[in-house]
């Protein structure tokens, strides 16, 4: 189950980080990152996060490293869907790069779209996820969501 309100320490990255550079826990950008990140941390990225290939290997690395949420200036469509589907909440938050500094503690509220910086007191906002994405996240991803759905319904046409 992924909580829909996530509070944690942030790691800040720049613009245009493609799938290949995200692989191996952001290895292409910071080879040491995998040793620094701790479970519950939040990844903040710039524009165009997750551009390029649709391989799910790389985003799963982020989840395995314990990243609890992602807030980025913008996220490619395929990537955002994939992150939601593997149970790692991710939201587009225009302006977030200016709102936070490395090491800040922030909160991302995926239900309201609010992004308060707990150090500075400033509050940013993001593009709220649709109901369906929130339900998928609550179940921990698309696969557990589907399994849960079918368990309570008679045919797949009702999903």
């Amino acid at each position: 189950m992924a909580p829909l309100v996530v509070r944690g320490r942030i790691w800040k990255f720049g613009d245009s980080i493609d799938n290949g550079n995200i692989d191996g826990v952001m290895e292409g950008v910071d080879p040491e990152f995998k040793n620094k990140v701790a479970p519950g941390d939040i990844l903040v990225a710039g524009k165009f996060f997750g551009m390029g290939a649709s391989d799910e290997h790389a985003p799963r690395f982020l989840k395995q490293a314990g990243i609890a949420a992602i807030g980025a200036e913008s996220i490619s469509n395929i990537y955002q869907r994939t992150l939601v589907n593997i149970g790692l909440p991710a939201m587009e938050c225009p302006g977030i790069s200016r709102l936070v500094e490395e090491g800040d503690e922030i909160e991302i509220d995926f239900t309201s779209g609010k992004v308060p910086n707990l150090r500075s007191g400033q509050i940013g906002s993001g593009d709220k996820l649709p109901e369906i994405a929130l339900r998928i996240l609550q179940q921990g991803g698309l696969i557990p969501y589907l399994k849960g759905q079918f368990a309570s319904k008679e045919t797949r046409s009702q999903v």
Partner: protein
Amino acid sequence: MGMTITEKIIARAAGKERVKVGDFVNAGVDKLYIKDLRFSKKEDAKGLYGVLLEVLQSMGTDRVWDAKRIITNLDEQPARTDRRAEGQDMARKFAREQQSILYEGAEGGIGHNVMVEHGHVKPGEFIVGADSHTCTYGALGSFATGIGFTETIGVLATGKIWLKVPPAIRFELTGKPGPCVVGKDIVLWAAGKIGYEGAINRTLEYTGPGINEVSIESRLTLCNMAVEMIAVNAIVPPDDRTVAYVREVSEGGFDILQSDPDAQYEQAYTVDLSKIEPQVAAPEYPANAHPVGDFRGMKIHQGFIGTCTNARIEDLRMAADILRGRKVQPGIRLIITPASFEAHRLAEKEGLLEIFRQADATVTSSECGLCVRPSLAAGEVCISSGNRNYRGRMGPKESSVFLSNAATVAASAVTGEITDPRELL
């Protein structure tokens, strides 16, 4: 307010009268494309089929949502790694057990071309694919977008996908392209114009009188590279060329939808095709595009004509026009990988393969090939007809990739440096 063709297709797939930008819909999928690699255990220890069977079991069935709408293709022929062989083995098992469609060997090639050539893409359809270049199919007037591993399982189980209706950007084409200017040059020019992020989570629509001058092959290239601008999809509204092509490769009817005259576009650009020169994209972004002349004298080590972007018969003919009676510069490698065995057969029939042999080019089996497999050493430079030139795409980080059309690749292989193909016509 009118709707764009993309909005109309989404509305129909979602069972709605109309949709507008920003709406969330649950759409029914007409076709699902899956590449062999998705069946390997790279992304999940249970593999795609293993996870799918668990989901199906929870539904009390062992059958996918609709086997005749699921098409799998083996993109590497033959498999060269354990991972790939494992993926292909599972892809065959899946197709056999579920009685879905699978292409390999002489029927196959690169999946996106195989989908089109075998008539699985029709105007008005809502198509998703487990590969980011699924957007290619918009060339025939369908909505098509890439999805990830987990979402593929969701579609296999339910036949549905949630989607946010994207805003649209329109490119209005006028005029007629000059010599050695094809879809690749138009799309590199467009990417250069709006930037590599220019269409993020948006639809690209290519329309206007100039589109009549653009072949089906070139339209496939135009739409293929939409994802390099981070678009959700790209689309060419169907015209006579589309209808003639789709009737030739498929049976049954299809919906001819068009954008309404009062449809809303977030941005619109007009492009005079006669003003576009052959384009080259410098490392490390496809949108880093400039006229070929800007790169004159840039030494190369390898030329590659291949990929779902540019290795169809139009591209092979362009390359042959340059290579006829010439030879690849000694010390330079030119690798030609036809996009499908169908393109391979046509090239054979038209004598193009013989021209390539005489020119000392290497012609390979039809597959994704060097686009997804390292072939460069540190410090080497490749000019490729493919779609991606990110750092390290074709070798170590110290290698680099320029992108162009097939004629420019061929001309550059002949001279050993980036060359305007019009000089060799």
